[in-house]
């Protein structure tokens, strides 16, 4: 009955019938305690009935029904998100093949998984634990800071974030002291991290440039624009696995259409050179075996990602942003004599910067935790691990290669921490760059 604004309901009546002296109303805490005692007394001992409609109900608060509404989803989230996350954290400190489902099959490893992953050969595990906890608490606090800057948690969160910075500084100091030894870490994991970073950076960068260019092209007054939009959107809607199989064939050194056309172009150039009296077979360049060589596997993935994303979701977002720019801005700039280049950098780019920011954040998050499907379908992480992303590393360790759920969980938590940190950095410093 929220439509009718009810008069403010008076507070509970002053207490007269307490069997003992109530605490003096000196401060808020004492008052709250008093109220609690009164309520408890009334609810349990008093012969006076409670009020027919409690203030909460009158204000439309119905906890029971609301919880019933949330419950189906909440149970699912509890069982399939919260429980696994907790279990994953515990598993990160264990070694377990996952084949035998008994507790005796699980070995407690302490911090060994993490030290092996990251190369912390510390002589004092307790110190590492304290440092780790400080880091974790600090990161959580930073989340709080980033999400709500004026919350009641602001001060403790700031302290915790400072503690995290201290922990990091301490880590750097230990690194210089030679206690943290990258050589002792898992080289495959660091390689996977590097691969993820490279793929993510080029992927996101290229996506922003290409999608913005595409959106500006598709934001023109042409009759056949809808057809183009459909064509550019096709890869987004196609089954990703089918496209990866297709691109694996396209990158094939012999029958792949990419190398065939490259060879055809080379031969045409050679023919041209020959026609003008140059040496026969002047260009001897051979196209690479894209997915079979360490130096070209990652570029092949990046190019495929661009093709895949060029007309997809980011492009549509840019298009919507471009159409939201008021026309007057351009008219004013034209009157002032700005050329197209100036108009782009002073109007278009700032006006679409929220979209850019959104695409950047989502790209970083998705890019860092993705890459399994491509690697699984096209290269199985090869050649020599050059396309193994962190994602593929984790699943490989958990299900295919060593079958060590504990080690995989530890790696997953490292990945989680990295994603969280990157997101927070984006939030804190990216939003300042966004301006209209």
């Amino acid at each position: 009955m929220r439509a009718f604004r009810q008069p403010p309901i008076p507070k509970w009546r002053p207490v007269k019938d307490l069997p003992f002296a109530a605490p003096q109303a000196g401060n808020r805490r004492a008052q709250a305690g008093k109220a609690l005692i009164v309520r408890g007394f009334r609810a349990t001992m008093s012969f006076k009935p409670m009020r027919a409609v409690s203030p909460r109900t009158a204000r439309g608060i119905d906890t029971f029904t609301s919880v019933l509404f949330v419950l189906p989803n909440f149970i699912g989230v509890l069982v399939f998100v919260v429980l696994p996350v907790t279990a994953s954290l515990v598993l990160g400190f264990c070694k377990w093949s996952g084949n035998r489902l008994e507790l005796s099959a699980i070995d407690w490893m302490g911090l060994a998984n993490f030290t092996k992953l990251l190369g912390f050969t510390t002589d004092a595990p307790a110190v590492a634990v304290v440092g780790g906890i400080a880091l974790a608490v600090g990161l959580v606090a930073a989340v709080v800071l980033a999400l709500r800057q004026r919350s009641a948690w602001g001060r403790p969160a700031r302290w915790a974030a400072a503690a995290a910075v201290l922990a990091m500084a301490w880590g750097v100091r230990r690194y210089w002291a030679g206690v943290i030894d990258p050589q002792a870490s898992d080289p495959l994991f660091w390689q996977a991290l590097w691969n993820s970073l490279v793929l993510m950076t080029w992927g996101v960068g290229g996506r922003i440039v290409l999608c913005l260019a595409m959106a500006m092209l598709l934001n023109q007054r042409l009759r056949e624009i809808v057809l183009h939009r459909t064509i550019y959107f096709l890869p987004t809607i196609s089954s990703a696995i089918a496209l990866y199989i297709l691109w694996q064939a396209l990158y094939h050194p012999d029958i792949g259409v990419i190398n065939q056309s490259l060879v055809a172009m080379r031969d045409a150039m050679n023919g041209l050179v020959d026609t003008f009296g140059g040496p026969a077979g002047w260009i001897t360049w051979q196209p690479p075996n894209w997915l079979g060589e360490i130096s070209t596997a990652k570029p092949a993935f990046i190019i495929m990602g661009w093709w895949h994303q060029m007309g997809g979701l980011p492009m549509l977002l840019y298009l919507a942003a471009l159409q939201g720019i008021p026309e007057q801005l351009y008219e004013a700039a034209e009157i002032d004599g700005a050329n197209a280049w100036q108009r782009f950098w002073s109007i278009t780019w700032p006006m679409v910067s929220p979209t850019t920011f959104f695409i950047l954040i989502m790209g970083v998050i998705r890019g860092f935790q993705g890459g399994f499907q491509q690697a699984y379908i096209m290269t199985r992480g090869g050649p020599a691990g050059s396309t193994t992303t962190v994602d593929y590393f984790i699943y490989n360790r958990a299900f295919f290669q060593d079958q060590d759920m504990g080690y995989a969980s530890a790696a997953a938590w490292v990945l989680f921490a990295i994603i969280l940190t990157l997101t927070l950095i984006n939030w804190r410093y990216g939003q300042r760059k966004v301006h209209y």
Partner: protein
Amino acid sequence: MRIKWRKYRRGRLSLAHAMLVRAVLLIGAVGMLVPFAWMVSTALKDKRTMASEPYRWLPKMPPAAPAAKWYVDYLWATTPDFKDVVLRDFDEAAHRLPGRPTRQGQGSLELAVNFDAQDERTHTIDLSDSDRPGVPVSMLAFWLRGDGSGHRLRVSIHGDGFVYKGADDLRAGFEGWKEVHCFFRPERFDPLGREVVELRREPAGDAGYVDLASIRRIELTVLPEPLVARTWQQWTYSFRKAWQSMPFGRFYLNSLFVSLAITLGQVLTCSLAAYAFARLRWPGRDKFFLAYLATMMIPAAVTIVPTFVLMKILGWFDTYRALILPMLFSAYGTFMLRQFFMSLPRDLEDAARIDGCGKLRVWLHVILPLSKPALATLATFTFLASWSAFQWPLFATQSMHMKVLPIGLSAFQDKFSVEYNLLMAASLMVMIPTLLVFLFNQRFFTQGIQLSGMKE
């Protein structure tokens, strides 16, 4: 936030500008379409014509002449305990490696038929004179070389009082040698990608094997086929082959069932929870919602390993429950619907409450009908996401009959990793349904993307 495709910024473009934009767009569109074109072109070819030099974009037509030429060689039979018995070897010199016809067919049995000249159409391989051991055989096999003409070949086996006829005819749509396996009781799907013929008994009856000594003759009948049918058969060869090699029908049904279940479940649970978060008042609501949002940041890699273990413990591994249940609840859907519910006017809801509706009834009769676009968007995205989901189904299922489409396609790729015509045909079969749905509901897709995308 929506895109108006017909209402453009600024006036008419200058001619040069329009031409430039057109050229760039056209080049890009060609670049987008070439991979798809290559896919279709490869799926229509067979192994031989795929590597042709120079590259052909269109597959070859079968020859128009009403004639067919086949070569048959190296007949053998397999006992139920997998021992081979060679029945006929017409060109023994060719078989340095056992079972591998290496030459171009000289010396092999030649079946050449000119259908205009009414040539002899049935060729008989007489086995009655040879002394063969009286062992049961479950499979009869031979090497066959077609000429790409696409006419049909029918296999039948005649013995003492029985006739087994091939249920399907062989097509000469391929060039080069192939191994043909005739089973008395074949597996439904042949994962090795062989040419498989099911032999059916006449009069009807069933036997898993026959006695080798009682087989008198094998008859191969060549049947003519019109050009259109031959072309069709030849171009769809890869598709039929892929369809026969793995239970793609089952994959389709699995995918459909799982995706529909996930979509329904998500729309239901998410809209309930979103209503409680958007409209109902209860202590701790907003903090709780923030915690809900925070779960969206957790990468899948963290949750998949323990969820896999949970499925093992519950005994749900390799069941539909494992495929559906973990995907049924999403914080993202709740978030999206909550944002939409908050934007609905309260008046209708209040009117319903005054008329005596309970909260559940308000949700069902006021909120849900008002938020059809948001629900449709959530349903579309959930459906697409679960239709293309790969990681979780890969780890949660094992057996062939539980695979969903992407996993089935991946398994198909494992089997036929170099036969690109089959791979492309299978990929196309997987892609076509979503493409069709998209082409007919384009507008809806793009608007849904805008609705969900920017509000995050």
